[in-house]
């Protein structure tokens, strides 16, 4: 286990300076996510233009992996259609959880920096919380999302 696989420069940077941090007001869509294991809490607000994510913000508190993952996600999904989001979410999920994944991290751009997370099984939930939360927002689910 090499720590630098987990805390890559991109991750450290996005943790210290999260992008798109805050809340959209008003927002078309909103969902809260919670990881009871470590107390991570985040909320995602989204404005849509048709079926496209026009704008997105997140806020909350959590470990470096959850904050950086959320920050990277907001950059990656802005402008994406719901179908494109679903496909990206599936690929990120595979990258985070499957050791034999054939996905080239480079093809995911900055999100590829999350590929080290799968070597640290206890931390996968930290990285995936924001994605589950955004999915819930896009599906108009109003209940808080929990990783447990």
């Amino acid at each position, binding site marked *: *286990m090499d*720590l*630098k696989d*987990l*805390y890559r420069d991109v991750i*450290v940077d996005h*943790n*210290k300076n999260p992008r798109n941090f805050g809340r959209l007001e008003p927002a078309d869509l909103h969902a809260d996510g919670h990881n009871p*294991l*470590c*107390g*991570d*809490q985040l909320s995602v607000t989204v404005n849509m233009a048709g079926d496209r994510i026009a704008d997105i913000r997140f806020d909350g*508190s*959590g*470990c*470096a*992996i959850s904050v950086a993952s959320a920050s990277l996600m907001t950059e990656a999904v802005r402008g994406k259609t719901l179908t494109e989001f679903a496909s990206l979410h599936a690929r990120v999920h595979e990258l985070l959880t499957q050791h034999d994944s054939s996905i080239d991290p480079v093809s995911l751009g900055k999100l590829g920096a999350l590929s080290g997370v799968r070597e*640290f099984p*206890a*931390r996968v939930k*930290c990285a995936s919380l924001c994605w589950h939360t955004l999915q819930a927002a896009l599906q108009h689910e109003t209940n808080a999302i929990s990783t447990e």
Partner: protein
Amino acid sequence: MNAATQSVIEQVGTRSVSSIRADFPILHQQVNGHPLVYLDNAASSQHPQVVIDAISQYYQKNHANIHRGVHTLSQRATDQFEGAREEVRRFINAGCSKEVIFTRGTTEAINLVAESFLRPRLQPGDEILISALEHHANIVPWQHVCQHTGAVLKVIPITQAGEVDFTAFESLIGPRTKLLALAHVSNALGTVVPVENFIAAARKAGVPVLLDGAQAIPHSVVDVQKLDCDFYCFSAHKLCGPTGIGVLYGREALLQAMPPWQGGGDMILTVSFEKTTYNQLPWKFEAGTPHIAGAIGLGAALRYLNSLGMQNIAAYEQQLLAYATRQLSKVEGLRIIGTAPHKAAVVSFVTKNIHPHDLGTILDTEGVAIRTGHHCAMPVMSFYGIPATARASFAFYNTFAEIDRLVAALHHAQNVMG
């Protein structure tokens, strides 16, 4: 100054800590390329070889189901199992072994008292008193009985240092209070609660007292008669014993009056479809085949701890606590959560820029095992307005050099996270 540069005598009574460490095989391994530093003892402690041997000897030579068996192995197993009960009785100085009920752990012991002792006594509006320091195991069982009976859970607040507020307690205890359930030592903060004062006040008010002793019994001499509590609960696995076994001590008169909690084999005298008569104490509360090897392992653990002396263990652990508190306080941006003057060897802390969860991962890559999170005490975290802490918890087999390793790993974490 670190341990290497000061003349520290690491000694538990007459034994050197290095010789004690030789008793614990698990401590001698590399984790992620570094010698293991195990500082998660409040979650679960490690086992000396004598405990591992007692369990494997039982399985290799003596295993059979206990009680009622007339064959040799069953008698041996019964003798060992009941012998362990007697070891527990001596260890906590209970009046008789009938007062020692084996459970799966502290949690089950508390649930037993909640369901069998308290629930039948509760009327709507009655009150159960706990503190804001409690582990979830000493909160949720009471919430259950409240839901079923209309009783109310009252919570004694804590101070900023993490002490249970005695003045507030005095105003909360009253004619409707049907039980006081208190942690003897806080698992999240390490606070030693001066339970003697609380028990004395509860006695005066005629309120029975349950102590959650899970975190106290590994670090101190516990004498249930001297404490004068009604129930005392603890788990073997925090005492160098196996998981899946624990103890409920209860005052005999109370246990006698309580109905059985779970039904099944071993807890009965006679069964017919018309009527069942129950076994006597302690077996009335031990339905089904128990964790025989667990009890035997616990007995061996208690003999081991007695050979070191709980007083000696407590004295050495206080030295570890003082050194850890001093060294951790020097780490820039680190804040210790829980600063009661009287603590067990537990240090909970947060750092300015690094989330506890990241600390836990980074320390692990340096071979240092600590716990991070809410420690099953979410109300304590809420009180301090934090989601989680990092917690280093020490046992008598830890060394000053290991505390230096912890501090060095924290500096490393600060470098990694920029």
